[in-house]
């Protein structure tokens, strides 16, 4: 069964070497990661100018830092413009209302292109929606599979076959199905949002499903016997005994799932031209300016950092919820 190791292998290494946490170990747990990052940046700085592409040299850390600031500045500028746009409309509406109190007024949203920051939030929204959908499918289904070995035997081949499928294979199908079935004059969500979300769900529900089923199947038989002696009804048994007992395993699955969801999303957005970080990367690639590679590198780092933060948040929730932490 796949389990997540700590995302900080250096810390783990230190813990193995110094099981009783000494001052020395603590000092090293700070200095070694910093040293590692520094070495990486130096190597990057040295290697980058050696790599020549049709869009210029591979960006150095300095280039990337500069473009990160640039992207942030663009976002600020766009926001200012959007604010002014709305302000202008409000003023105009006020004028119209002053002339004619019965006039219908409305405010059009700012039509500018989404910035890097906007794309981050689009991606986050999509990934969370897809992950949420995957969770509410996978956890109950996993409990059913874990509780009933006939059901498990029937479901197993399907799970094994669909688990390794890449998002890129699902995407055309999902796109076509969503286009065909999600028809509405006034849609609550964009089609592109639904497509990305469903793709994320299809790819990320497996680890949660498998871990939940395993966790449920491995509940201490003594606890199951207690439940039998008490004659707990099925739902009480599932809610009060099975689910809590499986929570640590479920969370391990959820963390893997969220990691996969985030990876899948970027690929799906890139391929399907759905809004989000993946589209940002693709647009920059197509754009082909001298800054493009630096900007893509900013996106790469942002994607990595956000993935890390998402995992930390899940870990925090796990520590709150699970009884074994």
């Amino acid at each position, binding site marked *: 069964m796949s389990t997540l190791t700590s995302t900080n292998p250096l810390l783990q290494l230190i813990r193995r070497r110094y099981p009783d946490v000494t001052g020395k170990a603590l000092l090293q747990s700070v200095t070694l990661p910093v040293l590692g990052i520094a070495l990486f940046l130096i190597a990057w700085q040295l290697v980058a100018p050696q790599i020549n592409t049709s869009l210029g040299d591979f960006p150095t850390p300095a280039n990337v830092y500069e473009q990160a600031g640039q992207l942030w500045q663009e976002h600020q500028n766009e926001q200012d413009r959007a604010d002014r746009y709305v302000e202008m409309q409000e003023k105009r509406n006020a004028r119209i209302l002053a002339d004619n109190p019965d006039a219908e007024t409305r405010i059009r949203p700012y039509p500018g292109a989404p910035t890097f920051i906007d794309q981050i939030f689009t991606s986050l929204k999509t990934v969370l929606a897809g992950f949420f959908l995957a969770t509410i499918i996978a956890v109950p289904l996993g409990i059913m599979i874990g509780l009933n070995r006939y059901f498990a035997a029937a479901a197993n081949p399907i799970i094994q076959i669909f688990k390794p499928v890449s998002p890129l294979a699902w995407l055309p199908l999902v796109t076509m199905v969503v286009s065909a079935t999600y028809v509405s004059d006034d849609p609550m969500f964009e089609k592109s949002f639904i497509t990305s979300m469903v793709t994320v769900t299809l790819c990320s529900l497996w680890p949660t499903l498998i871990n939940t089923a395993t966790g449920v199947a491995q509940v201490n038989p003594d606890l199951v016997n207690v439940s039998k*002696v*008490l004659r707990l009804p099925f739902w009480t048994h599932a809610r009060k005994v099975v689910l809590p007992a499986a929570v640590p395993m479920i969370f391990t699955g959820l963390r893997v799932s969220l990691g996969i969801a985030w990876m899948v999303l970027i690929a799906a957005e890139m391929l399907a031209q759905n809004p989000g970080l993946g589209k940002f990367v693709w647009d920059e690639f197509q754009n082909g300016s001298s800054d493009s590679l630096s900007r893509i590198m900013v996106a790469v780092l942002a994607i990595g950092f956000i993935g890390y933060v998402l995992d930390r948040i899940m870990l925090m929730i796990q520590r709150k919820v699970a009884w074994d932490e």
Partner: protein
Amino acid sequence: MSKSHLELTGVSMSFDTPQGPFQALDTINLKIRKGEFVSLIGHSGCGKSTVLNIVAGLLQATKGGCVLDGHEVNTPGPERAVVFQNHALMPWLTVYENVELAVRQVFRKTMTKRERTDWILHNLELVNMAHARDKRPGEISGGMAQRVGIARALSMRPSVLLMDEPFGALDALTRAHLQDALMEIQQDLNSTVIMITHDVDEAVLLSDRIVMMTNGPAATVGEELTIDLPRPRNRVTLADDPEYVHYRQAVLRFLYEKQRFPGKGDKAPQASTPTEEADSTAPESPVEVKAPEPQPTSAKTKKPVATAVQN
């Protein structure tokens, strides 16, 4: 003798294994009175736990059956509460919540919330665990957790309390404490108890009757020994009591002869494997089943009780 409270009639059990059926129990007959404390003793693997699980309803006998108060036992139920060897408390619930899970399930229709709360606390006080009511099982010692396990079982107000080596995982001092506590509670409540044990002293000290089982496969009841010692019993004074020593010797002799000379004095002779059994009992404390091993000759000389008392 009036109608028995709990009766096992011709209970046989065989398990399907890849090597064909395995006969674990063969024609076990047992009658237990209300308020009686019965110990099942026998070597590891002799099927003691299987008997208990059949009474609990967690296993179905292949032949024969178990009748409690005139009703046949088919499924598990709270009137046959089980105390498991490793407490089997829900690790995510507090001590109080663990007992509450049982009390709410068993008395949700017959008790008000207020009464249930009092009843939970009463049972925790019975085992001296009310002070730890908000602790999780992981935060208390094994002995304390086992007390809670007993409180949970008692809180179901069972007709029969089934205990599967309840003190087997505890150190000797904690075990003695809990044995005394159990004796006291059992006397107060007049509960019917079936306890599985490896420990000869525990069996003699606690029981009204000791049921000694032959070695498996096809284990059955070898001998029964009624322990006619007055209650309350005190472990310190009993240690020198000739009757106590006599009972102890009788159990040891049964177990010892079983182990060394399989089939002797036994209605159903089997090919038992002494080495395997010696191994499986090895981790236990020296007071237990394998204690008499160093004196292999005493089996032949069936000394009268009085001469055996000298130590």
